[in-house]
């Protein structure tokens, strides 16, 4: 039995093409603009913004935008719609450390099961956000397509979610710091001209700065070295590259990754407001599956440090 529905909140940032290709249902959230206008937050540029205009507005007004997750009622409605059709649900959320979505999902699950007690709903905390979370949802869909049951897919996710890596830079850390999505967010940051902070998920899914590279050239060199040391079976993988407002750099990164690792595919994805508001315009990163991330990130830090020294 594997005819269950995979649902994820909007921060997975999987656009229409992924939703169709992998049969994924995305639950929209909300965001508010600087003029207090409320928007539905979907992984699409469908509320009057383009990528360029959105990030230009965000740069101009870094604190003017706010995001909020789907409410318990909205989640209940979304779950009920599936349950009514007789579908079990695997619901995956953004890291519980960053958002209340996971808790809302669990409440909505209880409400839905009261109404449809014969259904099965499994909630998974991805411990990731944005493209790392999205890649995990795609993997869940691939496991389902391979014939695995809802429990098997859920078990695989629980066992492997710590293997989803982020290798990229966030050249404006102020956004993640402001939203509390950065380890040691109390540290404050001014303009880092030319410096690329290398970011990775920590054990709990928060972004941590593992090292800093002076200039893009060195940053690419370190990132490719880091992927090489942490990735497993790259030729069998779909690698995501996400960028907020760094398309040129993302394209260059894609080319380098293709040449070096020959993965099945490298997909460049934009980042929509649900995540964009929180990471700002400076994200350019690759997402892939690799070795489990160490609890204190000591192994990962050591890798970055040795790569930083190499000339």
């Amino acid at each position, binding site marked *: 039995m594997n005819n269950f529905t995979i649902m994820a909140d909007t921060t997975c940032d999987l656009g229409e093409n992924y939703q169709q290709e992998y049969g994924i249902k995305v639950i929209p959230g909300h965001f508010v603009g600087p003029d207090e206008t409320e928007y539905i937050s979907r992984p699409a540029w469908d509320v009057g913004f383009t990528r360029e205009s959105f990030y230009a507005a965000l740069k101009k007004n870094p604190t003017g935008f706010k995001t909020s997750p789907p409410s318990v009622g909205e989640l209940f409605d979304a779950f009920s719609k599936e349950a009514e059709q007789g579908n079990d649900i695997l619901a995956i959320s953004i890291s519980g450390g960053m958002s209340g979505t996971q808790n809302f999902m669990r409440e909505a699950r209880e409400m839905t099961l009261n109404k449809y007690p014969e259904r099965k709903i499994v909630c998974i905390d991805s411990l990731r956000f944005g493209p790392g979370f999205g890649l995990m949802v795609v993997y869940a869909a691939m496991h389902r397509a391979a014939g695995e049951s809802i429990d098997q897919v859920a078990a695989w996710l629980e066992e492997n979610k710590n293997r989803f890596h982020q290798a990229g830079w966030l050249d404006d850390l102020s956004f993640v710091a402001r939203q509390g999505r950065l380890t040691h967010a109390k*540290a404050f940051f*001014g303009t880092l*001209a030319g410096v690329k902070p290398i970011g990775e998920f920590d054990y709990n899914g928060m972004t941590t700065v593992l*090292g800093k590279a002076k200039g893009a050239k060195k940053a690419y060199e370190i990132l490719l070295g880091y992927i090489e040391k942490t990735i497993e079976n790259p030729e069998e993988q779909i690698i995501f590259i996400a960028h907020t407002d760094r398309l040129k750099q993302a394209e260059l990164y894609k080319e380098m990754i293709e040449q070096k690792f020959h993965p099945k595919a490298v997909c460049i994805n934009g980042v929509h407001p649900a995540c964009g508001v929180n990471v700002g315009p400076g994200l350019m990163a690759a997402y892939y599956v690799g070795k489990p991330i160490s609890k204190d990130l000591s192994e990962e830090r050591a890798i970055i440090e040795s790569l930083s020294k190499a000339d």
Partner: protein
Amino acid sequence: MNTRRVNGQLFEKMLRNGLANLKQHREEINALNVFPVADGDTGTNMCLTLEKGLRFAQSSQELYPYLKMLSEGMLFGARGNSGVILSQLFSGFYQELSRCAAANVADLRNAFIRAYRVAYRAVVCPVEGTILTVAREGIERTRSQIDRRTTVEALLSIYIAEMKKSLAATPDLLPVLKESGVIDSGGAGYIYIVEGMLKQLYGEELTDAIPVPAAEPVESADGSVSLELFNENTVFEHGYCMEFLLQLMKDPQYTQRFRLDTFIEDLQLYGNSIVATQADRRVKVHIHTFKPAKVIKAAQEYGEFLTFKLENMHIQHAEREQKLLEKKPHRLLSVVAVTNGEGMIKTFEELGCDVVLDGGPTMNTASEEFVTAFKAIDADAIVVLPNNKNVVRAAEQAVALANLANVTVLPTASMAEGYCALTMDMRDSEDIPLRIRQMREGAQSIRSVSVATATRNITRDGISCVAGQSIVLENDTLRAADDDPFEALAAALHAIEGLDERECCVVFLGEDAPNADEDRLTALLEDVNPMIEVTCIRGDQHIYRWLLGIF
């Protein structure tokens, strides 16, 4: 005229005259700058350092206690390289005479020898052609010229004459001096001090002989005294700051023969930091004292007060300390940096600098300011970014004075280097050595280019410029000069090798640079290297229109 021994009081008088002489030539020494940029401040730094020592030291009949306080004050107050070396010279001088109540000629000569030796030791890589050479050669060459009959006056005369010869030869030892057509400024300043000391012995008292106490204003002058900072349990450590204007009276009940010099001598028994000036029948006095009643009594011998002000300096110090201490939470690693300019200070603070010291236009932060900053910080480790070659030694001296093992001075030579060090800091890491390594590498990876206005005509590094032109320096090399700053920078950038391989450039716009410079600068840099990423930040720094960090 036939002085055989120098005690504490005489030495103090001599040195005050030395300071006065130095002050009279301060601007001339400031102008002895290798670069034609208005940041030459050797004269100012030496004055401030010596003044600090004089202000710190209490008058004493015996020489050694006076020298002890003097050298301590100078070590703390040392500003700039010249100030640091001067303080070391006096430290050595004291070390030799540390048991001497009154020094004879042989003692003094030995002390001058010890002085230069201590100063040489204090400098990591002593460079010849500097104040060190002048102080060394000057005293060593007196050897064959003195005997038992030599007076202190004669010793100092010979010493000065020999130092002048040595100074004249400094351009032969130090090519940068020759190329710039100047002699060593520190050496010149030191000679003026010794000359002033000699003049005192010849009875030539110079005006402005007494330090101006402007550096220690009483902040609570508006009457807003923090009462909780002083109570019956307070240990009264800082005395009073007293200022008054005295009207000398004609009534026979007052002493009629007023002489300013003897009045000052009387006051020195009760306090220090004395400034007293006379205009006709009125005398203005400033003094720091623990015994205000005695000062009042001494003054009332001659007249009555027109104005009078007395403030408890303990409160002022306590307020300052409290302010500093309150502000600093515990950190694994704290950074202290020297900058100038509103934008620059803000930038450094935003990047996580815990203490940003305003170095002023010429960046002449005193060792004492660093020591105060260290005290205010609660951190496992401290990194200092002096951001100017001339501040590195003052910072290092502060570390030695504070006797701290956890302070690392990264010898950043420009604010751009300091900025790049900070941008590479890993503030969320608990690995202190890693963070220091990161900052060091950050500072080392950049090339600093600065643009300023020439203060005089000069030819060096194959470039000629006239006063008023824009000049461009790459680290310590003059790269270009032109009437137009953009043209000058463009020419300089083309002269810098390997620029096409660099990726980023951060530009700090100085206080005189309009924001509109940003677009032209970006275009100019991209013209030299189309791939370069340019970031402009408002630094508002003095003197330098633009400071560039290229990496």
